[in-house]
């Protein structure tokens, strides 16, 4: 029964999610990559909220075809409980008529199988896409790394041409991939020639310390979370903040 029901559920939720996006026209920030999606999502959400911007982020790791639609509709998964899924179907329809909608949707995109990216990008067209990292995680379902890279290539092509691609340039495959981008690429990482250059300093007072240099401006930050992935997530949020600020000035 599951074999028949799942595609129906995917179709139903996808249709409603697309309809809702068409009505509400939010700015979509899509986060893809092998690692660090949730940390990045949380950091962006925190940054936008601090700027008093109305945003919503995918709960937990809702990043599959069903999860992405649920994130857009703003409802929780029924997981393995059929009764709960019954409620989800009703809530999904009701979401169309719910007043208010965030200006920004921060959505995770999960790639585990060939064709996943195509399926997910048939639901959303991101204004800003982020690729956090690319590793051999989730490689099992692909013939080799080139096939996995092709999935991400699609995101580079399908992001709104007037939008932005924020890419981790510390990753050599992503540096290569950026050459195929159809929209503006903003690079970040630890090398000198990137748009946002991170310099990692020695921890002090039990805080991670970094300097982010963009154009001629350098700023020191102290982070309460540890590790390079949290530094990347923080840097991405700084980039997003700058994009929004520049957009506002332009408007």
């Amino acid at each position, binding site marked *: 029964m599951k074999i028949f029901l799942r595609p129906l559920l995917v179709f139903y939720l996808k249709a409603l999610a697309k309809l809702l996006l068409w009505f509400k026209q939010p700015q979509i920030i899509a986060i893809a990559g092998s*690692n*660090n999606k*949730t*940390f990045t999502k949380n950091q962006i959400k925190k940054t936008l909220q601090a700027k008093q911007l109305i945003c919503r982020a995918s709960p*937990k*790791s809702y990043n599959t075809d069903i999860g992405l639609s649920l994130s857009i509709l703003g409802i929780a998964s029924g*997981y*393995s409980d059929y009764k709960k899924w019954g409620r989800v179907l009703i809530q999904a329809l009701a979401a169309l008529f719910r007043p208010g909608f965030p200006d920004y949707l921060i959505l995770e995109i999960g790639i*585990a199988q060939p064709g996943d990216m195509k399926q997910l990008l048939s639901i959303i067209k991101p204004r800003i896409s982020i690729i956090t990292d690319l*590793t051999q*995680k989730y490689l*099992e*379902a692909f013939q080799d790394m080139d096939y996995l890279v092709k999935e991400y290539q699609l995101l580079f092509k399908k992001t709104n041409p007037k939008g932005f691609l924020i890419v981790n340039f510390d990753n050599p495959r992503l540096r290569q991939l950026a050459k195929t981008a159809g929209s503006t690429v903003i690079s970040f990482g630890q090398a000198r020639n990137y748009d946002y250059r991170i310099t990692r300093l020695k921890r002090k007072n*039990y805080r991670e310390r970094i300097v982010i240099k963009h154009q001629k401006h350098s700023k020191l930050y102290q982070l*309460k*979370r*540890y*590790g*390079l*992935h*949290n530094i990347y997530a923080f840097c991405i949020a700084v980039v997003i903040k700058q994009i929004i600020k520049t957009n506002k000035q332009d408007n």
Partner: protein
Amino acid sequence: MFERVKNLRLSIIKQIELLASRYPDSISLAQGIPSFQSPPCVKRSVELALKSSIIDKYSLSPGLPQLRELIELNLEKQNMYYDWETEIIVTAGTIQGITATILALTNPGDEILIPDPTYTSYREVITLAGCQPVYVPLNQANNWSFEIERFAQAITNKTKAIFYCNPNNPTGTIYSQENLKLLAKLAEENNLFLISDEVYKEFTFDQKQIFSLAQVRRLRQRLVRIYGFSKAYAMTGWRVGYVHSDRSVIQEILKVHDCLVTCAAVVSQYAAIGALEMGETDLKKFNQRYLKLRDLVCDRLDRLSHVFQYTRPQSTYYVFPKIKPNHMTKLNQNQQIDSWDFAMKLLDKIAVAVVPGFAFGPNGEGHLRINFGRSAQDINRAFDRLDALFKV
């Protein structure tokens, strides 16, 4: 021959289980096994992993990145900040995490302070590492809390670490924040490591927040925290847990972990992913059921107040009643017996298995540990037999 292991003993708890297995009608309230099954989300996660054939190979030695990411996120919710890449290791249950930690932190001949009573296997792991366990008595009169002066008195120039379980097994005590901070101060003053086993941290019956010293950033390089999925998520068979500390410490523990198991079983790591991603509701459900079982076992013990005297456990699924002195003799034709003999008598006469208190340290003598993580039916059947034996 067998020099290294000559002072080790098979855990008393397992000995009791082995003996109980010979009694066809026995009811075991001994080993800390919950009666619930692992939540469906755990099984679902494993099913998906099996279908995708992603469990056939080793994971990285510290564990699957996606699991360690989830662990970091989970810790963050509890005000503990650790980098999943360099500061978290997924282990084959807590005991393997404990073993790797003790082997990494100590040298043979070191002393490790442990509260008395506390979990029985600590003694064995410490002994295996060639170290000396030093029991520091807890204060029974004050709900088995610890007295910092006693720890201070037990420190010698050989002391390397203070190792405790919070909430404490077998007493069900939650150590207060104030006391833990005093312990940390003592560790700092004497340059000692702190090893905190928090496998029962999710059991919060009286809605008490359980404070962890891992929340204190200053202690990062001094503290190793150990957690397991066995108890909270009813996953004892999966053997999966984790340790976390500052990277300077965890990278040393990783070397031992790699020697011991290479990596935790990948299938179990997927089970843990399921628990962390979707197990929150089950965790609450289990907690509510354990609360009811705690109240049930306390009610039943109240009926036996002429035999046992106990403190209501604040956490874990154990109660640790004291056997009233007159009943220590009554069961053995007025001859004085110890908690081991008392437990054996219970097994012999009514086929009820419990753990003798001395298994948890000298201060536990005269007590029994009763596991109320079993079904209400088992608890009631066992206590009906106790009622009959002690003529309620």
